């Protein structure tokens, strides 16, 4: 299953792109995605630990299942205001 992950701020700067493509097994969860991102992009690992993920523009937890066609985003700690 191909998953596209939107990345922002320092994460975008670290990988030099605003989206990453990953290939995950069917039935993969947000937790699986977090592990795969850390493995494929080691530079992201420290920031990943404190980041959340959003699926279809809503915060998701580690057990949230991913299905093709969803919009997935890595949300590093926010600093608006």
């Amino acid at each position, binding site marked *: 299953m191909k998953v596209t992950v939107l990345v*922002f*701020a*320092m994460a975008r700067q670290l990988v030099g792109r605003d989206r990453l493509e990953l290939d995950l097994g069917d039935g993969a969860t947000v937790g699986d995605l977090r592990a795969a991102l850390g493995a494929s992009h080691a530079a992201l690992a420290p920031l990943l630990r404190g980041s959340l993920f959003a699926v279809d523009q*809503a915060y998701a937890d580690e057990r949230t299942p991913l299905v093709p066609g969803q919009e997935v985003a890595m949300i590093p700690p*926010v*600093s*608006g205001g």
Partner: protein
Amino acid sequence: MIELTHDPIDPAAVLGGVESPEAGAVLLFLGTTRETTDGRRTSSLDYECYPEMARSELAELEAEARARWPLVHCAIVHRLGHLEIGEASVAIAVSSAHRVAAFEAGQWLIDTLKDRVPIWKRENWSDGGADWVHPGFTRKAEGGPRVDRPPTGP
């Protein structure tokens, strides 16, 4: 009313948007860009967001505030893009029949915005370099992020 804008925030317009004959209290909070962070001087800041989600989270904040306090009007405006020092990066205005609801809702809205809405700022330092701000992380002497403190909570 929520808005994400690249244009300067007009505080009078935000305030005017929440005034009402039903309101006995009108409160305006402005967050402004500060020159000094941890003793280091900032020359300017840049803000970016995840637009679709930032909009939906801001709308959710307004809905939650309206559910918790009897607000007449509520406005949240966040600036994006390049800001000089002293400019307003965020404006929150609420009106209510009595002052306690306005103070409490205003405080809750800015605290929750800073905790939840996917918006990020980058500090452009006066002595060179720039860093995205991710609470819990800090800048190493020669670039690159490191964990400043372990993540808290389960």
